[in-house]
């Protein structure tokens, strides 16, 4: 069970394999049925995906994730609880966010005051509202649980960050 083995066997598909296709398909069908019984999509998740449509923010500009320390930074040896650093960008507005176990810390750039809602994966829960000061800095002492997005109102603009799981 290694790569070489995979390739060797993979390259050997011949008439015998074609004959086996019906059997293979049958087995896959059985697996499909087993998955539907043993590991289906949880109904509440399906519902939340359906509801995501109504929650789309058609008025807001989307700020895309342009930096994620989990992917783009090299971990420092021995440091196991480094904060998650994120950067979102939409046109000329940049939002830097740092997520730690203690909460959330961030800055809007260029520096400007802003009203910020922390959206969560539980639409029923009312979003936490934060205020960025004149230098664009904001903090929250509650780390986001699960998927979150920030919705910023600043200088007449409405910007929402891409959803992310912190």
């Amino acid at each position, binding site marked *: 069970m290694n790569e070489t083995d995979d390739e060797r066997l*993979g390259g050997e*598909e011949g008439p015998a394999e074609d004959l086996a296709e019906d059997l*293979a398909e049958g087995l896959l069908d059985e697996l499909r049925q087993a*998955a539907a019984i043993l590991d289906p999509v*949880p109904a509440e998740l399906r519902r939340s995906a359906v509801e995501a449509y109504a929650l789309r923010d058609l008025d807001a500009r989307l700020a895309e994730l342009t930096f994620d320390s989990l992917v783009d930074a090299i971990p420092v040896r021995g440091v196991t609880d480094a904060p998650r650093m994120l950067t979102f960008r939409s046109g000329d507005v940049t939002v830097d966010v740092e997520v730690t176990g203690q909460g959330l810390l961030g800055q809007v750039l260029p520096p400007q005051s802003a009203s910020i809602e922390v959206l969560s994966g539980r639409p029923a829960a009312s979003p936490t509202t934060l205020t960025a000061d004149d230098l664009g800095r904001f903090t929250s002492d509650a780390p986001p649980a699960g998927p979150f997005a920030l919705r910023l109102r600043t200088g007449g603009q409405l910007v929402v960050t891409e*959803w992310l799981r912190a």
Partner: protein
Amino acid sequence: MRTGTAPSAAYDDLPYTRGGAVDRADVGVLVQSAVDGDAAAWKALVEGLSPLVWSVVRAHRLSDADAHEVYQTVWFRFAQHLGRIREPQKAGAWLASTARHESLKVLRSLRRLTPTDDAQLLDRASEDRTPEQSVIDSEDAAAQTERVRRLWQEFEELGERCRQLLRVLMATPPPSYQEVAAALGIAVGSIGPLRQRCLRRLRARLEGAL
């Protein structure tokens, strides 16, 4: 306006998708309808592509809690990106690829939090499900239950690569090769041979040859 019932989404006319195959152009049409404000089209996309997203997440052996969060993140983000997806007919591949990347991020963050080796990490899936909870409770079903349980057990014990591939392939409706490639970060051309090999191996296990 579409009805609320979900047409099954997507799929290539690749040989193994026979049966529930639907013109894959449908996915593009549904995406466009959803962009235009048709909530039923969105619902149809969720119905048709949810099992694919879930399969990708499960293929990466995320715990229940992590799997739920990644699944939600993927769909929330898809809703945000709906009008910007360049090739709407490839929405399935977009979802599969996003699910893969978010799953890998979770695995990476776990690794950073607790220095641990992969083997331990990979042992932490599917904590609290038993077949008995889900399968119809009747005496006639007992033999069938046993067969399903055995099949699942042998599947779970396959090598990691085969387990991942088959977990994605068993989504309903069957994903296209393009979606499978996006889900696993492998070349489309490698899927067919690998699939044959993995199913052969699974059959051998079931027949007690391994």
